[in-house]
């Protein structure tokens, strides 16, 4: 296994002798806190997660139906100005995603202007003709985006994937922060960390802002496929923290093109649905007829403008891996400016020249299935065995259109508590971006995933990755008497603890 020279987020460059000045305090904290103490705190956090039931299911492992994602006690820190620049890029990207979806299911100007090859859209199963011509209330399509990023330098962020369907992981952002506030309060005295605990309120405000026209006080619900879903904890957590009902398809009924929720007190009209079920399972009359998870008539209610669905049906065309390589053109087209966030160079194996290059450089590249996710069906060239490489070579030659390839990036590292002590491990990042009627906002935090195995670049939880808290620093305090948000949070935690 090769090791890749990478940017360390605390130490800076590979050969740096001292930590980056803004993060010296974190290094000092690491130096002064014994590993045994870090380990004790980490175990305490994981015990809480297990109690809460923050588990996920690994597909294909019957014995591990209830596993928790390992939590790492060492936070990852974004400086204020780094974050400000990253946020600008995220806002631009998510605005472009929304504009693209509104266009591609509407006028399709981007095709007329020759920016994208039409067969890329019309031949793509993620483009759903069933909802062509329908427009979500207020023209917002991708209300909740989880943009997966990797970092190779202080301001060098690359988008790996735009998740514009039903991105999960936000409950980890919130639970990890709670754990850190409880277990490492001293860090929040050292650093002015932006609060993330308002996320459920912001999400609810986003939902209410896109309610159909003329609805005074909208009724919002979270629609889950049920408790067998790997993200069920998150569905119930979000519904609970927003104070809205968690419903399954059987709880909803459509009548007269209006969505109703069955309650013991009778029917309640539903205006906004945060759905965590895939398009295929939304409405058996329009999508899969065999779907028991669906609500018959939901799309008719949506087409009539009587309900908002978050995220909108049909969004898969915006975050499809085949579309990904065109995202810089899409951002340029709709924003009229250069993309502030870069894409990873991508070879489309369906193009013969690219395929030839990829086959010649398999040991340097990451090869991915166009329609895969969760780290399944993926080759990481530099760390792969000969047999794995040959297996992929055969697969590529047989079905080149199913694959893309990217250079292996030197993912940044963050100190992480492992068996041998604290050591650098590669990380990625998923910030959560909300889009409502009044525009786009970036939650100051996110989900940092860490590859716990030395040298590994695969951070997916299904492949043995863990998570960390992600600190976003606020600008230096203007007045000493201003109570910071983190102090507010901590006193709340204290009070909760006292109860």
């Amino acid at each position: 296994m090769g090791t890749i020279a990478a940017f360390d987020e605390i130490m800076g460059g590979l050969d740096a002798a001292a930590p980056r000045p803004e993060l010296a305090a974190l290094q000092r904290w690491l130096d002064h806190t014994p590993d045994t103490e870090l380990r004790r705190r980490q175990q305490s956090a994981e015990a809480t997660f297990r109690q809460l039931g923050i588990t996920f299911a690994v597909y294909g492992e019957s014995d591990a139906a209830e596993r928790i994602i390992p939590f790492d006690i060492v936070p990852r820190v974004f400086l204020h100005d780094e974050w400000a620049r990253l946020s600008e890029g995220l806002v631009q990207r998510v605005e472009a995603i929304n504009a693209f979806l509104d266009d591609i299911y509407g006028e399709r100007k981007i095709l007329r202007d020759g920016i994208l090859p039409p067969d890329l859209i019309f031949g793509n199963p993620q483009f759903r003709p069933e909802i062509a011509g329908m427009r979500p209330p207020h023209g917002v399509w991708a209300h909740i985006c989880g943009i997966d990023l990797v970092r190779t330098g202080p301001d060098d962020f690359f988008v790996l994937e735009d998740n514009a369907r039903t991105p999960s992981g936000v409950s980890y952002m919130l639970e990890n922060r709670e754990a850190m506030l409880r277990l490492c309060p001293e860090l929040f005295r050292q650093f002015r960390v932006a609060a993330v605990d308002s996320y459920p309120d912001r999400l609810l405000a986003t939902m209410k802002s896109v309610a159909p026209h003329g609805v005074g006080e909208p009724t919002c619900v979270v629609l889950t496929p049920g408790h067998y879903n790997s993200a069920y904890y998150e569905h119930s957590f979000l519904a609970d923290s927003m104070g809205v009902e968690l419903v399954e398809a059987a709880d909803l009924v459509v009548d007269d093109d209006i969505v109703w929720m069955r309650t013991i007190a009778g029917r309640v009209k539903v205006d906004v649905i945060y759905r965590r079920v895939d398009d295929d399972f939304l409405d058996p009359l329009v999508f899969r007829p065999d779907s028991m998870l669906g609500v018959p008539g939901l799309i008719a209610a949506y087409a009539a403008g009587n309900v908002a669905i978050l995220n909108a049906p049909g969004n898969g065309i915006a975050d499809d891996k085949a579309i990904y390589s065109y995202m810089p053109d899409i951002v340029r087209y709709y924003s009229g400016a250069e993309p502030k966030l870069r894409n990873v160079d991508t070879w489309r194996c369906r193009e013969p020249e690219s395929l030839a290059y990829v086959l010649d450089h398999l040991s340097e590249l990451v090869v991915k299935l166009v329609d895969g996710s969760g780290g399944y069906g993926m080759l990481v060239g530099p760390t792969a065995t000969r047999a794995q490489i040959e297996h992929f070579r055969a697969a590529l030659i047989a079905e080149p259109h199913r694959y893309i390839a990217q250079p292996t990036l030197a993912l940044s590292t963050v100190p992480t508590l492992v068996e041998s002590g604290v050591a650098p491990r590669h990380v990625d990042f998923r910030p959560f971006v909300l889009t409502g009627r009044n525009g786009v906002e970036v939650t100051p935090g996110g989900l940092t995933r860490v590859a716990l195995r030395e040298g590994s670049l695969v951070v997916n939880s299904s492949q043995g990755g863990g998570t960390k808290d992600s600190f976003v620093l606020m600008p230096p305090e203007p007045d000493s008497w201003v109570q910071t948000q983190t102090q507010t949070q901590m006193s709340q935690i204290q009070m909760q603890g006292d109860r």
Partner: protein
Amino acid sequence: MRIAIEHQIVHRPTLRGKAVVQMLRLTPDNSDDQTVVHWRIDVDCDARMRSGRDGFGNAVTMLYIEEPVEAVTITATGDVLTSDAHGIVRGSNETLPPALYLRGTAATPASEAVTAFAAEAVRHCDGPLAMLHGLNAAIHRRFANDGKAAAELLSVEEAGPCDLAHLFCTGARSLGLPARFVSGFVAGEHDARPHCWAEAYVAEIGWVGFDPAIGLSPTDTHVRVAAALDAAGAAPVAGEAWGDLVPLTGETQ
């Protein structure tokens, strides 16, 4: 031609004891060669109906029945004026570009057997229109009276009434020509019956109808109701296979 249609469907909800929510595609649209003089949909129980459009631009009627029912009889009645346009469709409501209709579906998957059949059928044809007529005629000749042969080609147990149209769509797409499934009615000597055929897109002409059941293009006997990638997308009752419709009778007044 003035075509009087009275079409009855008995729908038996699969979920017993529940409110009925159904999507119907039973209303023809006006086009340059088709004028709906009057049209109505009736049901034999207490129901609410809402009209709208699906993603393909077809007129749909949402049917809501609050009280659970064993069966509901849906009757579509109306008069439609048609003129013969040699199969050319003009003034139809289009929401999607022809390029979309090149994709296969579960009911119309690309297959080597169909591709080979289509290639053979158009071997001596020059230009897309001639190829489509060649394909249509070949399907009619080979399969119109031999469901078994069609089932064999499609590797299914039994070929249903919409499989000729499916076969046409798959074949045309394999030739690089956009094609879609059409559901509607066809006037016979005494009555108008539900029927299905196909349409293919020819540059500079537009959408052209092909009816493999007769081996010709539709005429003024055909009333066009809905078009989609396959039978499921154009089904008169969403989620119900064509053959399940009971009874398939219509009476001319």
